[in-house]
């Protein structure tokens, strides 16, 4: 299969299932200029040996099916076409794909849980997951990543007419993990998608959550928090492609950075195509830089190709902890370290509050808490 035929914007021009359609990145490309390629451990240039041990386990509530299928399964690659070299590499190299189906009009009582556990960094692993939520069904998926791994994967979320899908992904990798992942949500007519990513661990994590619409009335919310320590590279590249009328999107990512060479990258691309009249979109990224030597890159891009939008905006801020906040807390006797923790936790916590499941929200809060205590 060759290059995808959908209308091209100046952003994201390439999409293909064929690895050869993508050159090996050199680091000069717009899509790769922030990523330290040498730390990708060969995921980008075909040099990684596929000898890694990543174990993917799935727990499904009653009524939901989970199947491991071969690449010939027609449900694979329906919603998502790989958009960069590593994504195409993963697409061509995975052995079995996990397909989870939430049948029409069903509302599973429990979350669907996917655990991805790495067993070392001796070789690379590739994965593919499809989550299909059929018309008018409502589901919640929790995907957790732990352990050590060199891992690239693609995840397709296919949300049917009037269906609703909430996804929380937790990147709680060990310090040496390398993870490159695309999460694509395809929203049918009146579908709702709520994505929440939490990225804390790993040497290099590069996540590319994207959204497309196949009908009007879709509503997507992409939120995320990240916390980068010394030496970590955490990159989030978002793309929302509005190609149908009257759809909504909201992107809100917040990060904190501390330590020498802690590096975060946030790219927020939103395209509003000619047909996408009545689009309502907003994207926001805020970074809290806690120490010298840490760097947050933040690049929102909004490309509007129609004259008729309901609302379109973006904002990006990166700054230090506010001295006045710390002073106020300290003036009430709270020691500096604790004041700092309270303020950072508050900054990230405001987004974490969006997670509606108590148990999960508490887990994410305590993971952030643990990160702060380091």
């Amino acid at each position, binding site marked *: 299969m060759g290059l995808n035929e959908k209308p091209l914007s100046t952003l994201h021009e390439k999409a293909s299932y064929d690895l050869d359609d993508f050159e090996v990145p050199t680091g000069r490309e717009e899509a790769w200029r922030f990523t330290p390629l040498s730390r990708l451990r060969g995921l980008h240039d075909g040099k990684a040996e596929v000898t890694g041990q990543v174990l993917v386990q799935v727990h499904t509530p009653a009524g939901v099916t989970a199947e491991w299928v071969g690449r010939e399964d027609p449900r694979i690659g329906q919603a998502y076409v790989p958009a960069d070299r590593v994504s195409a590499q993963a697409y061509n190299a995975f052995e079995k794909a996990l397909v989870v189906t939430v049948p029409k009009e069903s509302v599973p009582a429990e979350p669907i849980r996917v655990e991805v556990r790495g067993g070392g960094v001796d070789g690379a692993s590739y994965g593919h997951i499809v989550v299909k939520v059929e018309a008018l069904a409502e589901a919640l998926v929790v995907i957790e990543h732990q352990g050590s791994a060199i891992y690239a994967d693609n995840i397709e979320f296919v949300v049917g007419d009037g269906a609703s899908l909430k996804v929380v992904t937790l990147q709680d990798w060990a310090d040496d993990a390398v993870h490159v992942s695309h999460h694509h949500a395809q929203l049918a007519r009146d579908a709702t998608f709520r994505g929440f990513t939490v990225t804390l661990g790993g040497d290099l994590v590069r996540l590319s959550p994207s959204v497309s619409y196949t009908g009007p009335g879709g509503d997507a919310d992409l939120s995320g928090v990240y916390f980068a320590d010394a030496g970590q590279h955490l990159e989030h590249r978002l793309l929302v492609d509005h190609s149908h009328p009257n759809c909504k999107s909201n992107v809100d990512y917040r990060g904190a950075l501390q330590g020498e060479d802690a590096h975060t990258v946030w790219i927020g691309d939103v395209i509003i195509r000619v047909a996408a009249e009545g689009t309502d979109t907003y994207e926001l990224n805020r970074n809290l830089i806690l120490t010298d030597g840490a760097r947050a890159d933040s690049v929102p891009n909004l490309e509007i190709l129609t004259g008729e939008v309901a609302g379109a905006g973006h904002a990006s801020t990166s700054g230090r902890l*506010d*001295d*006045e*906040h710390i*002073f*106020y*807390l*300290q*003036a*009430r*006797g*709270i*020691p*500096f370290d*604790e*004041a700092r923790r*309270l*303020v950072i*936790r*508050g*900054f*990230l*916590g*405001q987004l974490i509050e969006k997670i509606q499941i108590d148990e999960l929200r508490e887990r994410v809060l305590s993971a952030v808490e643990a990160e702060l205590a380091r």
Partner: protein
Amino acid sequence: MSTLEIRDLKVAVEDKEILRGVNLTVKSGETHAIMGPNGSGKSTLAYAIAGHPKYTITGGEVLLDGVDLLELSVDERARAGLFLAMQYPVEVPGVSVSNFLRSAVTAVRGEAPKLRQFAKDLKAGMDSLSIDGAFAQRNLNEGFSGGEKKRHEILQLELLKPKIAVLDETDSGLDVDALRVVSEGINRFRASGETGVLLITHYTRILRYVTPEFVHVFAGGRIVEEGGPELAEKLEAEGYEQYTKASA
């Protein structure tokens, strides 16, 4: 019995000298009012005592019961028994009032309060200041009106029970009802007789509710006149003009 002693305090902001030698002693059981025109350095005095990093001490001493406060960090000063009610309390996003208050009380008392007792004290404190209970779950000062912020400053005062409280224009921005409620809070705090109050204000209005024993007129970064409550009446009638001219 506590004593705050400010001796010949000189303070600069960004290399500009603001306080030019302030001398003042506040003992427990006493209430001192500092009155002065805008820009005379009243807040500078308050912030400098509390240890705000923007202010540089260029001379003098501040002692609380003989302990040199200027040697202590901001939080150590608060734990030593100093409290500053701010003229403009800052909004701290994502930090709830109850979480903040519990952290502050824990820090100042040196141990975490029993949850049930704390909830009770908090409720009682909020009730007596006519603060709606829902505020406990709100973010600290975020979206509070000017008057709501000031009530919360007094709530903290009552919960933390410092030895010496510096109240920087706690009366400004309050309507008559709120002024009464806030004044009652300050008077409850004073009632033990074991605490001292340094009340900074621009207007005499609050002094009708919280009567000071001493009034100090502040102009041009120093105290230019001192007296009893009658001095406040004089300022009310004559304004600050004579002092601003003299200090210019």
